[in-house]
């Protein structure tokens, strides 16, 4: 396999890891108000992701860094072209990250209320915008012969792009519900399951519409495979929730996220950012990539480091594998 193709796959894997992992912690953030009716329950929710959310977010930094290293032209066009969307995502991630760390550090209702809003905002905004961004990457945007984005501020807000946002946000919400169901006990666990059954039709319908639309416009025959997998996985996750199999429900939404990324990346290849101005200006795995030497160096780094990272990150999930509930939440103890 060409190294450029390998790196295209690897970047797909990194985004899959990011959406799988941060997907559920975005979901937990979005659920803070609907599921966390009182302070103790909110603390239960936050503590389900407390030890891991920061490590989950590093998948984004790795995806960004890997794109810079392996496909500098893709990185440059994407990040400068989607400027304001990325700015909003950054603001959201800043507020959200600080909120997790700071909300419990002062014993005051108004203090906590503000940070809770920051968590909700910081979880909803990227959940919507990542969907909008990826829909536009796949569908293509106006790019000139220098590889520069030439659209306007509203270019990304086309119907297909918006539908992308309507898919990712409820999908992450559902994934978060399954995570909460898997990680908690008692009332909060039961309510998460009930809410999951109510919410599930939204990502299923929106996701199916989005992926089928994408297939018809630009899909490869083989990418019907992952589309089917995504659909089956989502439906199976509903059945698993009904059957009380919390773990399988979580696997179901996780698999759906992964399959959706495969379908999108599959229909994108060998482009990395198609140009709607002229197909000749499209960025491809070839013309956007680094040199063979750089790719070789980075391949060694990735091949050695990725398994190590996976092992210790998995171990951290193992350490915090126990379910938690309101009875585990200690009284507030801050100066």
């Amino acid at each position, binding site marked *: 396999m060409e190294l450029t193709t390998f790196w295209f796959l690897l970047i797909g894997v990194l985004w899959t890891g990011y959406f799988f992992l941060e997907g559920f912690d975005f979901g937990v953030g979005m659920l803070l108000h609907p599921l966390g009716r009182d302070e103790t329950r909110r603390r239960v929710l936050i503590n389900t992701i407390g030890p891991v959310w920061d490590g989950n977010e590093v998948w984004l930094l790795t995806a960004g860094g890997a794109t810079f290293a392996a496909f500098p032209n893709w990185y440059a066009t994407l990040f400068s072209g989607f400027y304001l969307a990325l700015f909003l995502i950054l603001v959201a991630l800043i507020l959200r990250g600080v909120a997790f760390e700071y909300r419990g550090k002062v014993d005051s209702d108004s203090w906590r209320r503000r940070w809770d809003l920051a968590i909700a905002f910081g979880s909803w905004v990227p959940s919507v915008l990542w969907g909008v961004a990826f829909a536009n990457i796949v569908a293509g945007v106006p790019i000139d012969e220098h590889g520069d984005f030439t659209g306007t501020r509203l270019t990304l807000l086309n119907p297909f792009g918006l539908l992308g946002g309507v898919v990712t946000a409820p999908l992450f919400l559902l994934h978060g519900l399954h995570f909460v169901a898997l990680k908690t006990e008692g009332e909060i666990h039961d309510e998460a399951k009930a809410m999951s059954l109510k919410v599930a039709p939204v990502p299923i319908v929106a996701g199916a519409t989005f992926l089928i639309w994408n297939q018809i416009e630009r899909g490869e025959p083989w990418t019907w495979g992952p589309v089917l997998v995504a659909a089956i996985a989502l439906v199976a996750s509903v059945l698993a929730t009904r059957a009380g199999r919390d773990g399988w429900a979580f696997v179901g939404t996780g698999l759906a996220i992964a399959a959706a990324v495969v379908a999108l990346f599959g229909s994108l290849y060998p482009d990395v950012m198609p140009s709607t101005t002229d197909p000749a200006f499209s960025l491809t795995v070839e013309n956007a990539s680094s040199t063979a*030497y750089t790719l070789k160096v980075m391949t060694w780094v990735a091949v050695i480091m990725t398994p190590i990272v996976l092992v210790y990150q998995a171990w951290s999930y193992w350490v915090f594998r126990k379910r938690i509930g309101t009875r585990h939440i200690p009284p507030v103890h801050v100066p």
Partner: protein
Amino acid sequence: MDVVTLSRWQFGITTVYHFFMVPLTIGLGLTVAWFQTKWYRTGDESYLRLTKFFGKLFLINFAMGVVTGIVQEFQFGMNWASYSRFVGDVFGAPLAMEALVAFFLESTFLGLWIFGWDRLSPKLHLATIWAAAIGTALSAYFIIAANSWMQHPVGVVYNQATGRAELVDIGAVLTNSTTLAAYPHVIAGSLLTASVFVGGISAWMLMRGKPMPEGDDKALHKAVRISIYLTFAMGLLVAVSGDYQARLMFKQQPMKMAAAEALCETESGAGLSVFAVGDPGKECDVRTLTVPKLLSFMATGSFDGTVHGVTDLNAQYQEKFGPGDYRPNLAITYWSFRAMVGLGAVASFGAVVAWWLTRKGKELPTDKPWLRHASVAIIATPFLANAFGWIFTEMGRQPWVVAPNPDGLPEVRLMTRDAVSSAVSPGMAITTLVGFTLIYAALMVVELKLLARYVKAGPQAVMPPGTPPDDRPPDDDAPTTTTTTTTNEADVLAFAY
């Protein structure tokens, strides 16, 4: 204002801000890891208090460092797309390595440390803080390697067809002489920052004269003592590594150092300017206080060595790279260099004062309010010295974003004005510049208030509630693990959110 100016302001503001958090994270991470090691080894409860107390302050600061760090990685592409295309083949690699090698390590193990107090064996828990601290120090290495490449590009060739720099030797990039000189300076500076932070806070609390638990009092005395010696050691290391770096810079970036010394004309036996009056950018002979021949000695090792001046170097550059002004902003370069050195010296001087006040077991005075205020004020000095150091080295590199290597390929160079994104309009750049600045300013206020609240409350406030702290030396064998599993069922989230 144009996109270049706006993007430069944004990069400057967000980077200097980010680097308020970074040195404290690196330095305090290592310091807290060391406190916990002492506790683990000796069972001395003072060190547990210091671990918990400074550990909390570390976390308050760490959160800000993490979130402002994401902006750093994104804005190369967002605002500096032309730069990203030109250097991507080289520059992206250390950034990706940083994420894979360092960020995963620090974030995962810090999560384990925060939540693992009662879940992991003491030995394993200690290992998690070390892993996190080492992660933060490693991340600095990759960033310094990336930055050093902009100061002194190595390991590359120039591709005529694509107009890009292409990596041919990753080893050369990761062992760039500029990196090897800058990294110890940054790490020593980080430890100095943390050391003054620990010492300043501890001394302030002891000089407040308020009654506090005996355990806190004992712990803070220890912290002051440790801080004094650590500050001495790191102050010395910062100076030695800085001097080494400056010598190297005279060779690699002569323009930057000539500007730093306000040396306009080439001189043999040049004197070292200590202070200048007026605008050193406009008139070169305004220097009032000069140590004769010292500059030549520092730059070349000989008192009569020749040091090239700004005017001369500018003419050389024009000959080599075409017409233009290749001088950095002289006033900023000159003064930021002095601010860095001066503030670093003040920080170290604080340790001398503290050492004098506590000599032969004396107590810090509680009846001198000015000393108490000075103890807090001095905490700011290493932070400002770090900031001025970066302002110096980045502003002194201008007008280049990738400065040409005098011994390398002249084609591998890029002017800052040619580095921005063409897809970004001034309106968009203003939006993000104002947006980031306002959010950062608000968060700075919140962070400082939170730090002040936790400092005032003292170590006792962050010790586990109700439980008398365990004085016994930790034991790796069965008893610890069994007590942990039986007692922690209700307490799995101690130290949690």
